[in-house]
């Protein structure tokens, strides 16, 4: 059940959006049995309207980002996997990210693109509840001193990522939170290629496609808007699953 636990910790099981077959995912379990069929990945529904995040994120950006960019990562990932579990054992997107190697560009780029966007849609989902659950608030205060300091670190990481990439809030395996950034579609699950691995519980997409139609070169304005739109319930769900790991 180790792999199943891992999927849960990545925050994917709760929603069912990304759930791939999780039966018999370890080699040991599979001995003497036929491999379960691999189900290709498909685009998870956004769960809210494309205009729901206006004015922070405009409807056209959301629609293209979801139906074109995210879809393209999924299509290319499915093509790269060619109907097989990754390395014969990884069926879920978080597992694939955890196993991917630096020189496996097609899987690295597109598994990252699929995982990152799937989580991003949840972390910025519209909500009227802006409160931070007390356990998470306590952890933030302990690791950053204050929410203000956390947001400053996230903002700096997002602004300073040169080129395309993401800024992350991540749970280290020892339980503490840290802020980092990664290029392109890499993410902190990719232990083989990031300096600071862990389980991300929030991320900001700073590819220009995430903001250019509305903000053009003003990345800082987009980052500030996103940081005021964090769905803390979704982040808390990711956090809860991560610390159970």
């Amino acid at each position: 059940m180790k792999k199943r636990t891992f999927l849960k910790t990545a925050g994917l099981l709760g929603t069912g959006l990304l759930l791939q077959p999780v039966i018999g995912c370890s080699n040991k379990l599979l001995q003497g049995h036929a491999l379960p069929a691999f189900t290709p990945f498909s685009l998870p529904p956004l769960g809210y309207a494309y205009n729901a995040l206006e004015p922070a994120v405009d409807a056209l950006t959301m629609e293209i980002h979801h139906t074109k960019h995210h879809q393209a990562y999924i299509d290319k990932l499915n093509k790269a996997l060619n109907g097989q579990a990754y390395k014969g054992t990884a069926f879920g997107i978080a597992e694939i990210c955890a196993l991917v190697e630096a020189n496996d560009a097609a899987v690295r780029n597109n598994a990252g693109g699929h995982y990152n966007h799937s989580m991003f849609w949840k972390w910025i989902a519209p909500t009227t509840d802006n409160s931070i659950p007390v356990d998470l608030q306590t952890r933030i205060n302990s690791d950053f001193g204050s929410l203000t300091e956390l947001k400053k670190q996230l903002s700096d990481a997002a602004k300073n990522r040169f080129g395309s990439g993401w800024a992350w809030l991540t749970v280290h395996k020892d339980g503490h939170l840290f802020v980092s950034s990664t290029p392109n579609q890499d993410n902190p699950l990719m232990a083989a290629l990031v300096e600071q691995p862990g389980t991300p519980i929030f991320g900001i997409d700073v590819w220009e496609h995430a903001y250019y139609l509305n903000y053009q070169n003003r990345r800082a304005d987009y980052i500030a808007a996103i940081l005021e739109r964090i769905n803390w319930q979704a982040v808390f769900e990711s956090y809860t699953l991560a610390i159970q790991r």
Partner: protein
Amino acid sequence: MAFTLEPLPYAYNALEPHIDARTMEIHHGKHHAAYTTNLNNAIAGTDLENLSIEEVMIKGFDRMPVRNNGGGFYNHNLFWDILTPGGAKAPSGELAAAIDAAYGSFDAFKEEFTKAATTRFGSGWAWLCAHKGGKVEVCSSANQDNPLMPGIGCGGAPILGIDVWEHAYYLHYQNRRPDYIGAFFNVINWDKVAARYAAAK
């Protein structure tokens, strides 16, 4: 002496419909301007301050603000220079011969260059470079790196480049990068590319 942002040699709308005026204005007036300012800030008071941009990129390669903004300054200067409204369909003379020698035909080169630009994941550039002796080669590089920098791309001197950062095309083409690359071929100033080739070989 500080580097300066030169005006474009044509109007912002001169490359329409292939590259739209608003993209050109923001690309030049905001992005290129920011690289210029940040480059000057990064080299002020350092040993790089009075060098040429080529020297700055090489000697400052291990300093990320210099590498990123020096590349951004140089690459955009090249980009504006090799674009023109009403560009010729293809090069001629010794450059055409060098492209034929390397790729068999102009169309085969175009296919290779398009592939390099399409498959550069994330932000970056695709290049046609000239090596000493005259051989030409296509490659790509990430972010604002370029082949003049040590160990980047195919080496040689870039004589043609396409910016495939999303800011170069997103307002008009959004996710359709291949359409932008196709349109780029309508606005190449092959005379300028040929002059760069003659100087580099």
